[in-house]
């Protein structure tokens, strides 16, 4: 079963359109949603939760249409961390816990308290006194304290220092050790996604450029450094995009279409992204 399924989803605003997005997240996997600022990642996530109404298409979360009346029950099984923790600033972790206890049927106060301890968060301190890292940790503690099967994380690691980010990514990795647990994580920090994702979806200017298995992407694409002179030796079919440098030309190539004579380097998610964006711009 797919934890998330989006089929031909479109949402238009006067200045932006998320158009014809189709992607799926198989149960038990981590899908990294990558894209530049304003690419439509947060819009896609709000559409998934039916926080905004789609113009067309279909969205199913944990097997349920997100427009159905029963979707409110499905939300019990979704842990969500947004780019900011939007709690009123005078609340403390303690009152957030009390509030969530009366919001989620499956709320586990002891799990929440354990997370607060693990993250060294005081339950008395007011939210406005928290650092960004502490705010995100509180959101993560809330997201993980009601037995979710699906985690949706919208830029949950952006603005955090590498140590906190690593700690948080480790928690997400732990979460997927259970077979039916899935994670959708949106970020523009590609190194985070490369570390933990099974699938990568790339949104650019409201369009989905690809949604593929990460390992397949790594196998499929490579970077070839070449000179203008030797460029003609590269089969044209293998070239996906090119980047001109002062002394050399960098090519994003399909490894399978090149012989072993070519010295093809590994392409990271960021490389693939940049090449594809440049190609789009051309």
């Amino acid at each position, binding site marked *: 079963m797919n934890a998330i399924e989006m089929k031909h989803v479109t949402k238009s605003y006067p200045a932006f359109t998320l158009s014809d997005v189709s992607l799926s997240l198989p149960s038990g996997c981590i899908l990294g949603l990558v894209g530049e600022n304003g690419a439509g990642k947060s819009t896609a996530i709000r559409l998934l939760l*039916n926080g*905004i109404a789609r113009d067309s298409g279909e969205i199913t979360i944990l097997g349920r249409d997100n427009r159905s009346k029963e979707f*409110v029950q499905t*939300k019990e099984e979704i842990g969500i961390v947004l780019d900011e923790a939007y709690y009123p600033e005078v609340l403390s972790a303690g009152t957030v816990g009390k509030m969530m206890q009366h919001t989620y049927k499956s709320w586990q106060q002891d799990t929440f308290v354990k997370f607060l301890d693990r993250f060294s968060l005081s339950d008395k301190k007011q939210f406005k006194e928290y650092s960004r890292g502490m705010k995100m940790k509180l959101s993560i503690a809330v997201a993980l304290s009601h037995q979710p099967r699906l985690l949706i994380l919208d830029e949950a690691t952006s603005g955090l220092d590498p140590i906190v980010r690593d700690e948080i990514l480790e928690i997400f990795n732990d979460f997927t050790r259970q077979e039916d647990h899935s994670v959708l994580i949106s970020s523009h920090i590609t190194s985070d996604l490369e570390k933990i994702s099974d699938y990568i979806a790339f949104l650019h200017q409201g369009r989905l450029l690809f949604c593929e298995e990460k390992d397949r992407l790594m196998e499929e694409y490579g970077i070839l450094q070449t000179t203008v002179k030797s460029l003609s030796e590269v089969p044209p079919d293998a070239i996906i995009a090119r980047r001109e440098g002062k002394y050399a030309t960098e090519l994003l190539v399909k490894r399978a279409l090149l012989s072993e004579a070519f010295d093809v380097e590994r392409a990271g998610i960021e490389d693939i992204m940049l090449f594809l964006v440049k190609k789009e711009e051309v």
Partner: protein
Amino acid sequence: MKGLLIKDICSMMKQTKYFFVLAVVMAFMQNDFLFSYIIVYAASLPITALAYDERAKWGRMEETLPLTRAQIIGSKYMMGYITVAVSLAIVFCGRLYGAMAYARPIRMENMFSIVITACIALAVQAVNLPLMFWIGVERGRLLLILIIVSAAFAIVSLWEDLEIHQASLHFPLVLAAAAGITAVLNILSFQISKRMYHCE
């Protein structure tokens, strides 16, 4: 809904605490205007809660929670009913104290004016909340002021008229009519608010 009420109460704890302390003091001052003020102010507390929500962009968080639109909207209405009920209780206690301490008789028209004020406050809330859900608190507040001023004019004119005919006024009937109109207004308002809420 209980979770949202806890959030609202905790968010406004400081302000609400001062208001209710002040309300108790005012209630014992035996002034009809202050009695009305306490009730009308209590009915405006849900708007303050909405302002806090807007400031924290709570709406983004709210749409991720397992709550129906009716529960989200309903929590603000419920808050208004609770605060008005508490303020009514304070005002009645104040009246009772006046009756005992100063031997001021509790007259039917005094009770009548308190309950009518509560109905008006809740009717204003019924008009106000859909506006707030629709255009936000800042712009909604301006409209609220307009509504309150117009309502005050209407009430003063009506009141003068009523006082002329007070002897012939059938209090239980007027109270029942006021309660009925307030209930209908609130039901309609709730349905409109549900449509207005986050219609992106």
